[in-house]
């Protein structure tokens, strides 16, 4: 049937064309990114403008009051500092511990090291929400509720296995000849590790550090369960300062949203490769 053949040929040409790809992707991104853009714009609106119908998209007058109010007049700066302290401490602990662990498991195999590597990966199946309950009992008993230390410990638990797994993979792919020749030249095992292996696996370590930072910065469940006051409250919980039972202060909320999304956006733009490498680490070998 030539008629259908012609139609299917045209259809195929449309599918084949790169213009179609650009159009489809462009349309999806328009929908996908509009909430982000609206959040950004709304942070610069006046509270009255957010109540208008029809809603505005671009602010009628650019107003910095929401930002000023959030910075000088709320608990948000404390929450940002808390988030930074918790995230950076977690990153430091996880990166150092995971590097040593992964190198030991990858390079100097011993009986059971393979099983240990895989069981680290298997811990990811354990749902953190189930462990909230025993953690709650344990930390209440230890008097460690409402402390930044608690959140650091819990975020280390959440991130250490995946980062170790990522680094095991990086060390496994490290060429053995380089290590052997360093050893033959008289370098000790420690020197080989610090001066030969580490400098060349620094991208994987950076990937681990970045995903740990992002996961910790965005973590909500444990933050909600284990903080009650601003002393330990990170940004993901602090944001609820502007959410009342009836009224939500949208301009301020959006201003906080800009702060909350900023670290990730910066990483996505300037270090996207590392983010992707970090996230897909567990997927490579199953």
């Amino acid at each position, binding site marked *: 049937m030539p008629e259908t053949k012609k139609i299917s040929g045209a259809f195929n040409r449309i599918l084949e064309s790169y213009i179609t790809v650009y159009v489809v992707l462009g349309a999806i991104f328009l929908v996908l990114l509009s*909430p982000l853009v609206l959040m950004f714009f709304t942070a610069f609106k006046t509270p009255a403008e957010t109540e208008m119908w029809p809603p505005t998209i671009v602010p009628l007058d650019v107003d910095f009051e929401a930002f000023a109010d959030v910075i000088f007049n709320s608990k948000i700066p404390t929450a940002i500092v808390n988030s930074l302290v918790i995230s950076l401490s977690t990153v430091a602990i996880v990166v150092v511990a995971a590097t040593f662990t992964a190198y030991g498991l990858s390079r100097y195999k011993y009986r059971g090291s393979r099983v240990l590597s895989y069981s680290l990966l298997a811990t990811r199946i354990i749902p953190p*929400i189930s462990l909230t309950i025993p953690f709650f009992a344990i930390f209440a008993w230890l008097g460690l509720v409402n402390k930044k230390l608690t959140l650091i410990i819990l975020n280390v638990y959440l991130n250490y296995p995946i980062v170790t797994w990522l680094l095991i993979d990086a060390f496994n792919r490290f060429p053995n000849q380089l290590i052997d020749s360093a050893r033959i030249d008289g370098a000790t095992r420690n020197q080989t590790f610090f001066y030969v292996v580490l400098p060349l696996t620094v991208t994987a370590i950076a990937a681990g550090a970045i995903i740990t930072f992002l996961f910790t910065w965005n973590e909500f469940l444990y933050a909600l369960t284990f903080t009650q006051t601003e002393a330990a409250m990170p940004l993901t919980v602090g944001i609820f300062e502007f959410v009342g039972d009836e009224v939500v202060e949208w301009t301020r909320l959006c201003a906080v*949203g800009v702060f909350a999304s900023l670290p990730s956006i910066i990483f996505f733009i300037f270090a996207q490769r590392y983010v*992707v490498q970090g996230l897909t680490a567990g*997927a490579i070998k199953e």
Partner: protein
Amino acid sequence: MKKKTHINISDAWYGRLLSLPGITFVFLLIVLPVIFLIVLSFLRYNFVTPVAFVGFKNFSNIFSDRLLPHALKTTAIYTFGVTSISLIFALTISYGLHRLGQRRFSTLFRTLAILPFAVPLVLSGLIWRWLLDPAIGVMNYLFIQITPFTEPINIFGNSTTALLGVILADAWIKIPFMTIFILAAMDGINQNLYEAAAIDGATTVTKFLHITLPLSRNGIIYGILITAMFSFRTIDAIWSMTRGGPGKATYHIGIYILDRMLSLMDLGQAAVIGIIVFVCISCFSAAMIAWMKRD
């Protein structure tokens, strides 16, 4: 060069020395709570009355609670909704970006594709609550303009649509998340295969069905696994949108746990629900990994 320090231990002991301290610490941090979770489920543990062993009383209480089947059903719909919406979009986006390869704007597009993932999930819930608001929401305004409806929809005021609202907010974050996994798998496909197929006269659809899909299969399954696992166990979006309401329309199993734990302070019953979540996720993961391994 620094002074050489000779530690006369074997390579295997060197490996143990490097790895065991961290592993021990983390296993204590994981294994002890898992054991304690099981112990808790047999205890009356409520910070008021003294701790006591109650046998299977917590289990019988939870299993006879009408909220359990409801929470499981809600969670299943939620997980399925979030995963399938994200899968459709993530597949389309990944395939588009894969087709573009190194062409113009591909770097920009790749960044744009993952940008929503920058927003903390809990914040995404709040943003969507605002976009869908009946009185001031932009999405509602657009909805009235585009569709024949003339009245804004109060999506969270209605128990049938509320679940759809929370699914949207979560899927918005999961689309870029899943795209990362699927795109990584598609990027591993050798471009020569497409050229060879084109010479043989394969259409775009055939190439997609017979080259792209089968060769990125494991990345896709992994994306499904991890997205479903996360939506089964995370409550961020629901907490910031509805906290389980209206009524119990969005009563995710995570909210059920937090209710028992933080509002009722009944850790024994909460532990039983925690075990149920644990079992569900383990079974699901095992099934998905088996599917991935099957060739």
